[in-house]
């Protein structure tokens, strides 16, 4: 049998449960990404509005999520929680927040002050300014942050198989331990596909949501 056929067989095998693990992997990544986006957006906007000093503090704390190895974070949670889904989500959440937070903060802060002035002059409340002017203008940057987090989370979710939550990483580890290349690839290839899909999907959504004016402004002049 060709390698491709071997890999497919290894993926479908009830022992590795490729489809089930893919589903788990997606659930894990999506949950972590969703929570990270929510937290990142909220904190990012907060940081943009409060003073420089406080913002710096929040950002530094959040960056711990990137510098502390994800597995160490999960191990910390394991000492108080039982194995499984939520400790893993926590670790991935901590990893995913910094890019989104940073990009939201930067994006909102760098919005053209002229636009903000103008909208205030038009009588918009602070909340409306945020919702209708600042966030939409910051959208490209925010989405760049979400895309980065998505790919990092999907990749790192492969490492959390050691805590009983499952995911495609388990298949990779099994293949690695037993030197079974087809099993290893049966786990690694889907992970890569998921990451690429995430890039494409978020890239597409970003293009749809970006206000037309911004899109036009970014296009090089003919």
């Amino acid at each position, binding site marked *: 049998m060709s390698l491709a056929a071997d890999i497919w067989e*290894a993926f479908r*095998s*009830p*022992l*590795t*449960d490729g489809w089930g693990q893919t589903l788990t992997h997606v659930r894990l990544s999506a949950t972590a990404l969703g929570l990270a986006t929510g937290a990142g957006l909220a904190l990012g906007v907060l940081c943009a509005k409060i003073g420089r000093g406080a913002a710096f503090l929040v950002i530094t704390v959040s960056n711990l999520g990137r510098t502390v190895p994800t597995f160490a974070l999960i191990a910390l949670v394991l000492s108080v929680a*039982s*194995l*499984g889904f939520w400790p893993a989500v926590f670790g991935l959440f901590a990893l995913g927040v910094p890019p989104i937070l940073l990009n939201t903060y930067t994006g909102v802060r760098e919005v053209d002050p002229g636009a903000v002035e103008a909208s205030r002059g038009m009588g918009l409340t602070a909340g409306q300014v945020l919702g209708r002017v600042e966030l939409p203008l910051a959208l490209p940057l925010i989405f760049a942050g979400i895309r980065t987090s998505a790919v990092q989370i999907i990749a790192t979710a492969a490492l959390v*198989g*050691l*805590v*009983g939550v*499952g995911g495609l990483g*388990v*298949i990779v*580890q*099994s*293949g*690695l*331990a*037993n*030197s*079974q290349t087809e*099993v290893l690839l049966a786990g690694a290839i889907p992970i890569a596909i998921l990451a690429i899909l995430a890039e494409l999907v978020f890239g597409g959504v970003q293009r749809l949501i970006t206000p037309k004016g911004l899109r036009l402004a970014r296009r090089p002049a003919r």
Partner: protein
Amino acid sequence: MTVRFGRLAAGLAALILAGGTLLAAGCGDDDGSGGASDGPGGGAELVLADKGFAESAIVAQLYAVALEDQGFETEVTSLGSTEIADGAIRNGEIDLYPEYTGTAFLNVLGRDGASAPAGAEAVFEEVKAAYAPRGLTALPPSPYNNGNEVACTTDAAEEYGLETLSDLGEASGNLVYSANAEHLTRDDGLPLLRREYGIDFREVKTVDISLRYRPIEDGDAQCVYAFGTDPKLATLDLVVLEDDKGAYSAGVPFQNFPVVNTARLEGLPEEAGAALTDTLAEVDALLTEGEIRRLIARVEFDQDDPRDVAEDFLVAQEVVASS
């Protein structure tokens, strides 16, 4: 003039800092190495490995401590699986590691359990003979036997009438199993249980091998991949299922024995080589099932360091002098 001097000073400072860091790194002491060079070992360096779980680490440290007492310099590293250890010792990355006769027979050599000779000694001799052309020397095993087993909670056993592995085959669709990733596709692991006994668990929780009892303790799994020497089998409410078909361990014994890279062994001066084999034999002879369980319990329950456990044991057995 002042600016240039300033730049020069900064550059010099950076150079000194970098050089100092490199020196400090180079002078760092490796974990687990040390020991006097006096003794038949003559300061020969040996790289040992364990397979990443408590029992393996303890045996590797027992070897290391005993060998250091004989004047060897040792270093113990932890590897992820049998395959990785076998590959590493064959290409000389490591010199010595503890393996099981059953694992060597079924897994490394890929032989069929049905073709295994009768008796632990015969199996060892066959492994030894097969290892020689692979550049590996198999040294005599310890008395204790550590087979693969499936253990389930007594509650689950009562509810589903589980006494043998075949019983498990019928009930497994309702049960959750805890095992490590390697077990999933390893030929003598889950695939064998499925093939021979029809075991197909509702869910398998894959965890790091050292954490495999955690899902049982947390109530998330009812059955677990157990080793015969696991002290948790005694302390948790578990019952070991009988291997009615004799296929799981394939009726093959799992005795601990040291594997040495032949080229390394023969490359040692005669005195050192003899000291190596004699020391290992002395240590292995002491390891009965009771003793090894006690040592593992210290690491798994008391959270003691394998090296400390090894040192205490060897001092108590008067194999090494107390330091």
